[in-house]
């Protein structure tokens, strides 16, 4: 007859005092830690309040509505010194987002190219990529930004002797001038057609995938997409009589008029952030591709896939799973590094708030705003990349 052994053992009773009770101790420790943190926090807040009162510094975010009375060199929304601090900060946020987004796109493209070059079968390509990565990775970004900024403002000629690498593009120490399409309905229509083409290609792709799942046949998606995306805008533009109207920058007096300007500060930020982050992305791409076992490539060639198709259909989808998480943190790094703009005078969020802090003396609110904005931007990038990561993650059956 089986004896229920558990019945024989008396339930463990707390020996000695309640101090040895793990539950009590866990509560005690937490109360102690939280109490300590609150105590330190209270001490700091108390000191701060008495200091603020003594120095007659106003608190609160009331200053956001006051007139900023400082000018900002580049703004995506209209802004003048008569506008409020709040609007100035908005200008800064937009500038931060602008340089970060462009930097992320450019660094991804450049980094992917360099990363694939690191694995090239060509010795020269491989070594050049290695030199690029090591040289840029091991020098502080701030130093590189200073160098780029100095190259643009000190080594490039003035507007009158501006370099002209391509017709209509001018490089001078006042920044880069590029031609832009001038106001004409044809351009707007072409842009609309381009967006329409993107939507149609997406639908075609869905249809093709459904068709392949059903019958095994595939539509020539690549050709259709290319034809739509290039052809449709061209046709629309042609329908308006193919007007070649560009706003080309031209020299007038001592400076350029017309076209779009990349200021020296913006250009230096964009070049510096892109080339620096690309070096890190290159290493991520390289290790991601190397993480896909060689057998996958061999199996793909055994199935008769050409090298290009092998890379696109077999290696890259698997490599992406390894690449995306560290890539996300590089995007976050790039965004945070864009705050170095304050050192070369690009009017990003940090430099605008730095000026505001100097003018109003409201350091706490300023630093809190910097932190809150960056936390929000970081959170946005994280959420998007996590969504993308989930989408491409391995679906196990």
């Amino acid at each position, binding site marked *: 007859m089986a004896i229920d052994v558990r019945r024989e053992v008396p339930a463990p009773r707390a020996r000695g005092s309640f101090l040895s009770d793990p539950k009590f101790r866990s509560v005690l420790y*937490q109360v102690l830690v939280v109490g300590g943190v609150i105590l330190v926090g209270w001490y700091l807040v108390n*000191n701060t309040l*008495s200091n603020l009162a003594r120095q007659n510094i106003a608190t609160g975010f009331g200053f956001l509505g006051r007139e900023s009375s400082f000018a900002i060199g580049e703004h995506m929304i209209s802004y003048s010194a008569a506008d409020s601090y709040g609007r100035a900060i908005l200008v800064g946020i937009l500038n931060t987002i602008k340089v970060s987004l462009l930097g992320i796109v450019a660094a991804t493209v450049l980094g992917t190219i360099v990363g694939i070059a690191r694995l090239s*079968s060509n010795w020269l390509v491989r070594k050049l990529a290695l030199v690029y990565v090591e040289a840029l990775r*091991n020098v502080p970004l701030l130093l590189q930004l200073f160098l780029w900024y100095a190259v643009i403002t000190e080594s490039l000629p003035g507007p009158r002797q501006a370099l002209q690498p391509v017709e209509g593009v001018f490089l001078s120490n006042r920044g880069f001038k590029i031609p832009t399409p001038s106001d004409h309905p044809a351009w707007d229509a072409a842009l609309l057609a381009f967006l329409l083409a993107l939507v149609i290609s997406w639908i075609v792709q869905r249809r093709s995938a459904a068709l392949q799942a059903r019958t095994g046949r595939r539509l020539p998606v690549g050709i259709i997409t290319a034809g739509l995306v290039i052809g449709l805008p061209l046709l629309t533009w042609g329908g308006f009589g193919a007007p070649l109207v560009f706003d080309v920058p031209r020299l007038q007096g001592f400076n350029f008029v017309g076209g779009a300007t990349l200021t020296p500060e913006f250009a230096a930020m964009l070049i510096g952030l892109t080339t620096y982050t690309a070096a890190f992305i290159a290493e991520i791409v390289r290790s991601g591709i190397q993480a896909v076992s060689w057998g996958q490539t061999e199996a793909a060639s055994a199935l008769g896939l050409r090298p290009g198709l092998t890379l696109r259909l077999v290696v890259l989808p698997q490599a992406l799973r390894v690449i995306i998480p560290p890539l996300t943190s590089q995007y976050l790094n790039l965004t945070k590094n864009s*705050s170095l703009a304050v050192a070369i005078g690009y009017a990003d969020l940090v430099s605008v708030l730095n000026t505001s802090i100097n003018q109003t003396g409201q350091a706490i609110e300023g630093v809190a705003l*910097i932190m809150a904005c960056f936390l929000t931007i970081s959170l946005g990038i994280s959420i998007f990349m996590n969504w993308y990561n989930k989408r491409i993650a391995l679906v196990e059956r």
Partner: protein
Amino acid sequence: MAETGTAPGATPVARPPALAVGPLGWLRTNLFSSWGNTLLTLLILWGLWRVVPPLFDWLVTSSLVNVASSQECRGAGGACWAFVAEKWRFIIFGTYPADEQWRPSLAVALIIGMMLFSTWRGAWRPWLGLVWLGGTAVVLALLWGGFLGMTYVSNELWGGLPLTLLLTVIGLGAAFPLAVLLALGRRSDLPAVKAICVGFIELVRGVPLISILFMASVMFPLFMPAGVTVDKLLRAQIGLILFAAAYQAEVVRGGLQAIPKGQYEAADSLGLSYWQKMRKIILPQALALVIPPMVNTFISFLKDTSLVIIIGLFDLLSAAKAALTDPAWRGFYKEAYLFAGLIYFFFCFFMSRYSQRLEVELNRSRRR
């Protein structure tokens, strides 16, 4: 077929085709394996031919080292190494009194010596921490002086490379114990402790270093009770320590997660208390695992210390930038940044190579 050295009766060995072995074979497989590759090689060679000779000319052939005045450099087509010859003391030592510069030199040598000593794995013992503690104390004493006939030098005059290395070493050293505590707290069963640690780590990692340095420079004075002033250098150092701690904590957490659950359970079943378990079983294994990624955080931290220029400290990069403000030597920024960049590169490249080698060596022993 005696001349080919084959044993009698064996199948004669055919020599590989001349184009598959030796230098020619190397060229063929590595540079000219296909039409595309040949084209690429020729394109790159053409590019190099366009870039490298002028670069060499600028760096070496037309460069000037000995000049009477900076005016001579202005007309020349090459690098002005005379600028570096004139300013290297200022870039490396900042405003430290010229007669006393043997002291920061010795301090830098001491730090490099300790770094080299730490690469030796026989030194990976608990007393290595004491070596660094003692060494850093000696470095600080050397820089401050005020005893043994050395004049006192206020830390406002410190600058250049010693300051960069000092901020790095103290920042990393002080952050490490904090990081271990934060990582343990993040993995703790106590929800309140965990929440505090997660909150701190994610907050610090989510904002740029500049905002933390701003906080240290403009908000910190408000935190202190009236009458207490904290030195600018110390404030920046505290900001850097908090920043480094959050990043190191995540690395340590990676190590803690890599330890199999059985180790935790075994320690529990032996009746070890929490701290005994961590100190004797978990941390020794986890910390050994994270040494290579830890060296990588050291590299980025060394580069990040250059941001102190924004709150007005005088590190290596600020000194290089300040050297350019001398009206006589204005405009030689390429030389200045190349010089400072090479010093940073020297330290970072050395550390990254070391961490790569270490990773291979440590994995080799683990696989066996």
